[in-house]
């Protein structure tokens, strides 16, 4: 089978990544349109749809940003097709504007938003809790804890949205996206489930007069959906003990494992697992809570469920105590089996268990993330440093190049979010006593850098912008963007040229160099540094990993120390390539890691190129 996710039959059991299970679930739910902006931990979902594009009966796109992704998917759903938009949690901030309105105007085809949250900040700038968005927008929310549920809930979310014409949130966390578990498959429908496109401006155009009608209608729909949550098989009770435990998301897995391993504890509690988490199934929860002295609420991050339960208890005049966020259950980071075990033990007045473990060995060498050998960003940072050193403020952005923060480059002084380097850099320059140099990658520039650049030109800001154009979206797994020349499916015939775009934004001082040509890069930066106003340097060189995978191209040479290794001290410090090493006190270059960019040879005359063939 070329694409098991697409081709495996109903009834088969597969071991699937949580994100793969979501893909299969969406296919079983009859998804017709999939849009996304990639971002860890969501990226394997769109990447699978991209690989299978052409084989499956759906339209797929990498959109330029999350707002656009949700608008394209929302538009398709307005027009009658079942649609899915995927993004990481901070992406929903970008998409928040259309999200609010889509919940108001309804989506006849059905629309599911996958929000992949990241408690613990494994690969994100924050750990915001997007369950708040379900409340803010007024949309149902489903939270899987296993791969099977990830599939089943993706299917159910699409069907629910199609049936009610109301957008639905599928909210995951990193652990759920990246777990693997066994999944029994269902049927992928052969026929597209669609509604015809209709003109209905009263419903679909939120003029204030319409919007006033939309709001009570939204509240009515959510009440009707609450009835479905009351009887949903995704909400279930187990156990017969007196203490109530109400758990959501991956906390359910930790609770189940704690009870699995400690039957003594298990017989003292009853567990309400909430999978269809919003609107809250109030009647089912009241049934569970009534007659109990205490309920423990297990939810990572914000005390959302906890506070809603407190309101429910107060409204119904109950005396049940709620144990939630506090000493045992932190409001930040991920939960663990140890955290859940001790929270339950505390409620049961049992002494906490401290798990015995070996003491971590102090001061072990670390392996911090680093730019790869041959990364053209390294060359760009080196050239900028050669011109500015510490005499500039560096406005960075989101991508591999955020790693420019590391020594020896130290080329990131502040970063906010996708696309912020230009606009926040513009503002910082108003306050700064030194020039501001901003860095942005090509995909991030398309995502939300262009508006900042137009603003900088229009308002006469003073900023040197370096666009690090490596022809791919490196950080999240090499997804295409509008500027790429090729993808795994072939040439990009509709490539958007960054130079033309920058010029069209009104920038008059713009240069393009290959940053790996150090002399040219330094000359260009020196010239732009002497000017003022908005200046742009396009540093263009493909990411070597992307070039190898997609274009099957690699350099024919590697670097080696031809002269005196003792003369390589400086290059080791300033270029700091991971292919460098010291053996028996002598500097050397690992030829299997070297990509042949030859940046180091331009800095140090002891290093020369040699052809890979000759080296054998």
């Amino acid at each position, binding site marked *: 089978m070329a694409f098991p996710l697409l081709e495996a039959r109903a009834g088969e*059991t597969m*071991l699937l990544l949580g994100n793969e299970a979501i893909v299969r679930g969406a296919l079983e739910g009859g998804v017709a349109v999939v849009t996304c902006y990639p971002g*860890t*931990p969501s990226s394997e979902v769109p990447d699978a749809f991209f690989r299978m594009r052409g084989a499956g009966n759906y339209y797929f796109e990498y959109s330029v940003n999350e707002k656009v992704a949700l608008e394209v998917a929302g538009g398709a759903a307005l027009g009658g097709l079942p649609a899915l938009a995927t993004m990481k949690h901070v992406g929903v901030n970008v998409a928040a504007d259309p999200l609010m309105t889509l919940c108001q105007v309804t989506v006849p085809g059905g629309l599911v938003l996958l929000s992949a949250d990241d408690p613990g900040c*494994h*690969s994100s700038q924050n750990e915001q809790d997007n369950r708040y968005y379900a409340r803010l927008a007024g949309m149902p929310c489903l939270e899987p*804890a*296993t791969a099977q549920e990830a599939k089943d809930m993706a299917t159910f979310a699409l069907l629910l949205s199609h049936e009610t014409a109301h957008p639905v949130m599928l909210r995951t966390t*990193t*652990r*759920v996206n*990246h*777990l*693997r*578990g*066994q999944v029994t498959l269902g049927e992928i429908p052969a026929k597209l489930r669609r509604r015809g496109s209709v003109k209905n401006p009263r419903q679909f155009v939120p003029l204030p007069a319409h919007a006033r009608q939309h709001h009570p209608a939204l509240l009515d729909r959510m009440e009707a959906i609450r009835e479905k949550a009351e009887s949903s098989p995704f909400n279930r009770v187990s156990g017969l003990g007196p203490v109530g435990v109400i758990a959501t998301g*991956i906390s*359910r*897995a*930790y609770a*189940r*494992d704690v009870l*699995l*391993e400690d039957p003594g504890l298990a017989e003292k509690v009853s567990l309400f697992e909430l999978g269809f988490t919003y609107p809250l199934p109030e009647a089912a929860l009241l049934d569970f809570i009534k007659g109990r002295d205490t309920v423990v609420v297990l939810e990572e991050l914000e005390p959302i469920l906890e506070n809603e339960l407190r309101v429910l208890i107060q409204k119904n005049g109950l005396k049940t105590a709620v144990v939630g966020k506090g000493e045992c259950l932190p409001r930040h980071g991920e939960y*663990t*089996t*140890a955290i859940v075990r001790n929270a339950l033990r505390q409620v049961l007045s049992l002494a906490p268990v401290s*798990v*015995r*473990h*070996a*003491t*971590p*060995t102090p001061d*072990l*060498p*670390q*392996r*911090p*993330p*680093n*730019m*790869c050998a041959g990364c053209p960003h390294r060359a760009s940072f080196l050239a900028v440093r050669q011109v500015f050193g510490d005499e500039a403020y560096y406005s960075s952005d989101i991508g*591999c190049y955020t*790693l420019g923060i590391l020594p020896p480059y130290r080329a990131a002084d502040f970063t906010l979010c996708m696309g912020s380097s230009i606009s926040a850099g513009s503002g910082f320059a108003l306050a700064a006593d030194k020039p501001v140099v901003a860095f942005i990658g090509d995909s991030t520039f398309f995502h939300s850098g262009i508006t900042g650049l137009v603003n900088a030109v229009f308002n006469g800001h003073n900023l040197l912008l370096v666009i690090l154009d490596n022809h791919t979206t490196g*950080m999240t797994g090499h997804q295409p963007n509008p500027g790429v020349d090729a993808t795994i499916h072939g040439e990009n015939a509709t490539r958007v040229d960054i130079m033309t775009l920058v010029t069209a934004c009104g920038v008059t001082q713009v240069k393009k160099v290959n940053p790996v040509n150090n002399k040219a890069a330094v000359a260009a930066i020196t010239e732009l540094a002497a000017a003022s106003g908005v200046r742009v340097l396009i540093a263009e060189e493909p990411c070597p990993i992307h070039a190898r995978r997609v274009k099957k191209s690699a350099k024919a040479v590697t670097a080696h120390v031809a002269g005196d290794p003792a003369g390589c001290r400086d290059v*080791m410090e300033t270029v700091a390539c*991971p292919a*460098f*090493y*010291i053996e028996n*006190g002598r500097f050397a270059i690992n030829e299997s890691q070297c990509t042949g960019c030859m940046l180091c040879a331009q800095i140090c005359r002891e290093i020369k190129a040699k052809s890979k063939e000759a080296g054998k």
Partner: protein
Amino acid sequence: MNPNMVRMRIFLTGVGGQGTLTATTLLAKAALDAGFTVTAGEIHGMAQRGGVVESAVLLGGFLSPKVGFGEADLLLGFEPLETLRALPYLVQGGVVVSNTQAVPPLRVSLGQDTYPKQDVIEAKVGQWAARAVFVPCQDLGTRAGSAQSANMVLLGAAAGAGALPFGLDALEKAVSAYLKPALAGVNLAALRLGAEAAA
């Protein structure tokens, strides 16, 4: 072993590029096909750029896709420094199967930091684990046909040491079923060399 009688947490650790996640998925699929219920977990993203890669395979009904300190019954270390770093995950009296061959961190390569000595690593592991098996995975992988198959050498060693609740045959079946056919020969040889080295 009867799949219904086994409950086990396996923690895997290595360095980006070593094939730790490929091995994790293969181990999970082998276990599933041998009749065990399986949950596995991994963390992607920034960790992959030469960083530490940690993953977990849990057998016998666990639902949590991760392992906490003091919880792992078996620690599979694809790189010796990472074996030592991950030792706190091992339950006291657990089993360690580890590679002996280092992937030096950048600061070590540049002479700015010191890599712990192998005998120190083995001594620290020995103080906590009931049993520890150390195997030169790259060397055996090279002998099997490719140093890249070092990850399969380590899985083979785990089976050869009797540290898994199923035999080498389950891993062999999984390699044949799930890895690219062109690589099956090398990987099967790697499994066997690992198993012999650990037996």
